[in-house]
């Protein structure tokens, strides 16, 4: 059973979770951002055949950024590993947090940049392994690189 600990600002609070407890489910509509103060968090994603572990986040890491920044439903589920304490930022508190703690924005960009590179590397590895045609690869990379493309993969 999770426990709300304290509220320092209106848009920011601490919450504790027991081992294995669900923080949010895949598809949930929450918009909060989570920073791990204590413990770890496992991120799990459903596939057509089974649920897979995508990653483990540790003390100091953040997660939930996709829902916050893009207003998307939760892309994957999050579960506490061991006793876990989270600093939870509500969307309205995000900019205030950056104002009080500007290096948080720097670290967030750094981690997001790292995750993009990791995704690209994994994709390229798959492409090489399965020898996908060059045209298909370029179409994919343009999409991943943030370029807006239409249904045929051409820049708009």
């Amino acid at each position: 059973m999770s426990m709300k600990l304290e509220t320092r600002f209106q848009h920011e609070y601490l919450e504790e979770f027991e081992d294995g407890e669900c923080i949010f489910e895949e598809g949930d509509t929450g918009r909060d951002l989570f920073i791990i103060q204590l413990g770890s968090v496992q991120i799990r994603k459903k596939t057509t055949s089974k649920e897979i572990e995508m990653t483990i986040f540790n003390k100091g890491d953040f997660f939930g950024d996709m829902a916050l920044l893009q207003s998307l439903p939760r892309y994957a589920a999050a579960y506490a590993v061991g006793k876990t304490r989270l600093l939870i930022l509500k969307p309205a508190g995000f900019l205030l947090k950056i104002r009080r703690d500007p290096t948080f924005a720097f670290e967030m960009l750094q981690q997001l940049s790292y995750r993009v590179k990791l995704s690209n590397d994994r994709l390229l590895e798959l492409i090489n392994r399965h020898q996908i045609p060059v045209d298909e690869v370029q179409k994919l990379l343009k999409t991943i690189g943030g370029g807006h493309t239409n249904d045929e993969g051409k820049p708009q």
Partner: protein
Amino acid sequence: MITSIQTDRLVVISDLHLGNPFSNAKKKVIPFLKWAAAEKFDLCINGDGLEIAQASFAKIAFEVPEFFRVLGEFKRAGREVYYITGNHDIALEHFLEDWGVMKVAPFLNVQSGATRVRIEHGHIYDPFFVKYPVLYEHLTQFAGLLLKVNPGLYKLWISFEKWSSYRRAKKSGIVGERPHFREAAEELSRRGFDSIVFGHTHHAGHKQLDNGSYYFNTGSWMLTPFYAKIENGSVSLEEWKEPARLRRSP
């Protein structure tokens, strides 16, 4: 850019202001660096190691060759040197990086054992620096001129800061500092840092924060040579006293 490291042994110093005619830090810091390299510590210079805001490049070029030679001893001992930029040396950022002796960063997140430590110069939490950056720069240059007239004015200013903040700091922070630095440390600690180490204010000290984390300031080697020692997850603030065996060596 590296901002996260793991280490079992690290010493942190700040605010040497080498190149500033009023900095007498070099004669104290050289033996310290030799000792730290011999003891196989990594080194972090937490901002304002060199002075370009109040001194010329020629002064730095005259002052630092011995300093850089000693930094080479860390490499030879298989240890690392990290340099965090401050407000008096930020113009030298790329120059320092290209030198290749050290890794330059805006801040460091250090994992030592189970402990997470944030090391940052701290000038971005200085309300005057943030609100009036142009005025701050002009006043820094003007202060440099005043110090040419009388270097003693600097110590007078530090004493004034201590006196004016004494009653407030006894409760809320390190004596001499404005409360913004403790508040910034508190904010960082909420992101899972067990200790936070700043420089910039030239007021050395430490304080336990409300949530149990610790805030350290390593002060300035222009005043008293303090350093933060991070060893297998334990963080402490120490004053450098030259060991006798080092004093005797030529």
